[in-house]
């Protein structure tokens, strides 16, 4: 990945124009609804304006190359964890949060460096990246012992471990994907398809939603929305097959299932945390979306499963 490679990559060009086209069309539709038909679309308009900021940042990073992509996704993991820590109250425990941040920095480092003895082909230190949770969990378990404290530590340790594994390491797979031979295809497909899956669930739910999906977790979600999103996600790998032309039918079906099912489970997983804590959004950093975790919740679930599915069938690096 590099600016030169991005300029020559047909996959990068294709996604750039697809996203640009969708943003223009969505903007025109919203403009007609807002100013032409005087419909109350203020909240969607705010969400759309945030997309106008997020999309250029994302494409800018992917265009800039491998290192900016790794740094960007690790920063996103860090800020995502920060939201989780602020939501659960873990942020008051600086030892626990420091170890998790250290772990996220280590994820970035394993994505950036090669295996020192040259035992792995390709960029990144995959072996250490995969076993990193062992070391971070060990450190987290060490903290109460060092400070000779037991009361309330199970909660703190559990939250820190969940925060690192889920927001740090699982999401960190997206950073490691920058080392793949087909980084543009994987990264841009996952980012695009997961967001389309979210939009699909929202749209189908709004249009046809009647039967609650998981009423105690996310009352707005319906079976109709979930089925519609799954249908869209199953079709997308075939429509965007240029992203991974060597994928056979098995991999395309699996990709559809991973995004279609995983995306919604990721959304619900963060909703479980929010409902248990008793908050509406994980933060207020992105107007119209909530926090960073509210935006990347589906990706966190989808990316590692897609990563290991692809790594099973193909030599990724």
């Amino acid at each position: 990945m590099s600016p030169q490679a991005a300029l020559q990559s047909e996959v990068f060009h294709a996604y750039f124009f697809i996203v640009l086209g969708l943003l223009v069309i969505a903007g025109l539709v919203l403009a007609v609804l807002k100013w032409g038909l005087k419909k109350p679309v203020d909240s969607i308009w705010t969400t759309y304006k945030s997309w106008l900021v997020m999309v250029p940042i994302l494409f800018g990073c992917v265009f800039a190359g491998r290192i900016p992509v790794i740094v960007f996704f690790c920063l996103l993991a860090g800020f995502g964890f920060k939201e989780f820590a602020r939501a659960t109250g873990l942020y008051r425990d600086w030892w626990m949060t420091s170890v998790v941040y250290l772990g996220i920095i280590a994820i970035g480092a394993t994505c950036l460096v090669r295996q020192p003895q040259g035992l792995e082909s390709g960029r990144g230190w995959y072996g250490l990246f995969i076993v990193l949770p062992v070391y971070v969990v060990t450190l987290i378990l060490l903290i109460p012992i060092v400070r000779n404290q037991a009361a309330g530590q199970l909660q703190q340790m559990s939250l820190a471990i969940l925060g690192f594994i889920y927001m740090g390491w699982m999401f960190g797979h997206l950073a490691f994907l920058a080392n793949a031979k087909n980084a543009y295809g994987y990264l841009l497909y996952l980012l695009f398809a997961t967001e389309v899956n979210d939009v699909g669930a929202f749209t189908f739910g709004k249009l046809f939603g009647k039967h609650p999906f998981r009423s105690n977790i996310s009352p707005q979600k319906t079976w109709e929305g979930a089925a519609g999103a799954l249908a869209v996600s199953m079709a997308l790998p075939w429509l965007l097959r240029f992203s991974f032309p060597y994928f056979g039918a098995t991999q395309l079906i699996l990709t559809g299932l991973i995004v279609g099912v995983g995306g919604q489970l990721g959304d619900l997983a963060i909703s479980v945390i929010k409902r248990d804590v008793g908050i509406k959004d994980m933060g207020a950093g992105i107007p119209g979306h909530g926090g960073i975790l509210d935006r990347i919740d589906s990706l966190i679930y989808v990316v590692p499963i897609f990563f290991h599915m692809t790594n099973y069938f193909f030599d990724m690096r």
Partner: protein
Amino acid sequence: MTSWNYEPAADLDQSLVERLRRFPREPDMTIYGLRSFAALVLRGWLRLFHRLEIEGLEHLPKEGSFVMVANHSSHLDALCLLAALPLQKLHRAFPAAAKDYFFVSVPRLAMAAVVVNALPFARRTHIRQSMEICRQLLANPGNILILFPEGTRTGTGQIGEFKPGIGLLVAGTNIPVIPCYLNGAYQAWPKGKRLPRPRPVRLHIGRPRTYANCPADREASEQVSRDLRQAVLDLAA
């Protein structure tokens, strides 16, 4: 089985700008890191560019809450007083800053909340509310309140009258008040100048004073304010 007790941050639903504007602010590791880094840079800059010298460091209490009061002649003042404190107390030191000046535009807000750790003091409206915030701050051990009782920077270089607020805050309490005098700050960065000039600045720190025996009324408060002003003038002499 006992339920877990979550305590989400009080400002969870607020944007970064709103979070910086509120007080008390929630502890934030990123902001603490930025503030510590900025303090190191600013301390170096004050020593090199303004040849800052500090006298009377031994008068600063080692523990407990206290108030530092000083004459106010430039934007350097709060930075000089903060430079007199150990780095580990940086996040517990709160210079009171005009809410209507420092907490409006985003660049000034970032400077006030992130770098200086300022307490937004509404000097025109809601003064009672601001005083209450100061009082609560001092009720927690280990906090340091930095006040400029003149209320604004001097336009002449002379020390103006001290407002009675400082008296109302400390009269009838055991909270130590440390009078401080900043010499040269007016010449280094007078009101109306956009940038500071390389003039030497000297900070004199006086002995702590307490006003436990003063009644907490208006008259006694004015007397306390006059006494503190005199203490600052004595340091100047």
